[in-house]
């Protein structure tokens, strides 16, 4: 019997596609303020556990798609997602052995940093600065969401035999 050698990378792309949809799906106004950074979370997971499949290149492409979708300046989200991907890759050795709550804390910092860059670019593009604490709310929501997303993606990775 031959060993099944498919790597099922399409599951990764499917998840990123879903992430793109989730980042533009209409939500009530009060929830919109805390919309999780879906793409950043998904990219962090895949960069962490399958660094040879997903890295800065995929992050950049996803960011470009998000830019077109949101109508922001081309390259804004791309830069932010590349930064997230880079930081996660940098911390990869430590992050992988951390318990889940510690991963949450590190991601809180990483995503917070990315969101600050996002804010900076947003204001640089000529918009009025929003209240900064509310602007960082999505980071907190994303960090709290990490354990659940982690469990789901882990299931996808193992049962879907994504390698």
């Amino acid at each position, binding site marked *: 019997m031959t060993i099944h050698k498919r790597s099922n990378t399409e599951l990764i792309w499917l998840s990123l596609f879903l992430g793109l949809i989730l980042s533009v799906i209409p939500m009530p106004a009060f929830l919109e303020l805390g919309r999780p950074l879906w793409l950043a979370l998904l990219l962090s997971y895949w960069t962490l556990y399958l660094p040879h499949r997903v890295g800065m290149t995929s992050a950049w492409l996803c960011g470009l798609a998000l830019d077109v979708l949101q*109508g922001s300046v081309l*390259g804004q989200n791309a830069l932010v997602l590349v930064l997230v991907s880079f930081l996660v890759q940098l911390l990869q050795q430590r992050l992988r052995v951390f318990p889940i709550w510690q991963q949450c804390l590190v991601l809180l910092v990483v995503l917070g940093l990315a969101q600050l860059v996002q804010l900076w670019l947003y204001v640089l593009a000529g918009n*009025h600065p929003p209240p900064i604490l509310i602007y960082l709310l999505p980071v907190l929501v994303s960090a709290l969401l990490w354990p659940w997303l982690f469990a789901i993606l882990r299931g996808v990775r193992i049962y879907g035999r994504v390698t």
Partner: protein
Amino acid sequence: MGVRLLVFTGLSISLMVTDARLDTLKPLRAQMSLIVAPLYWLAGVPGRAWDAATEQFSSRSELLAENEKLKAEMLLLQRRLQKLAALTEQNVRLRELLNSAALVDDKVLVAELIGVDPNPYTHRLVIDKGEQDGVFLGQPVLDARGLMGQVVEVMPYTARVLLLTDTTHSIPVQVNRNGLRAIASGTGYPDRLELRYVADTADIREGDLLVSSGLGQRFPAGYPVATVTEVIRDTGQPFAVVRAIPTAALNRSRYLLLVFSDRRTPEERATDSALAQKHVDHQQTAAPVTEVKPSTEKKTEPRRKPVE
């Protein structure tokens, strides 16, 4: 790894600069929007399914009540329409007396809302009409109750609309009661506009209707924009604080109207009507000029910043 970060950062920054300062990336953007536009449709599926379900299961009594309400509303509107016909006729005659161009009805195109900007700090919508339907940059957008905003990005089959309440948007308005001119700026709240630089002594009251004045030559004149809700006069301040609520249902309307209005300046309009008059005199006909073709030439260059 560091090198790749540098490369991607450099790429992103140069992309951002070109996109913000030059127009060279527009075709690329248009192509990419074709690819990702279906995502908006997909993202709207749950909302539409919910709407369909509630419609399917809404009770008979509710429907009857709504029907009743609509009938009453229609009666009111029809009464107004009867008067309107006579008034329009009178208006046209008076304008002829004044020798100004006839006020033709604006042409409109109905568009459907297909997406809302996910960024909670900007107020933008995506509609299902684009370049193929003749939508142009800066085109005014209305709903049934008043002005909503203007088109800021045109893609092949979709367009992005900036709402009046966005912090980067301002519109010249007039108080309907006495013609006082002002500028209404967005505040970032979906139900509030603020009038800038209104003198403390200006005659403006709670409940005043603000209509577009057409002075910026972007919006057609005379469409309702907002109702004044609050006037704060503080003698220590140079200007009064005037807040108004938009008459259009900015966050509820599903169908929008794109207006193709007469985009000529008053001078052009005057020369055009003079030419038309001459033409009529030349032909020795008694029929009055009722329709003036809107000129197709674009007067002002489309600006990136929609601030008037």
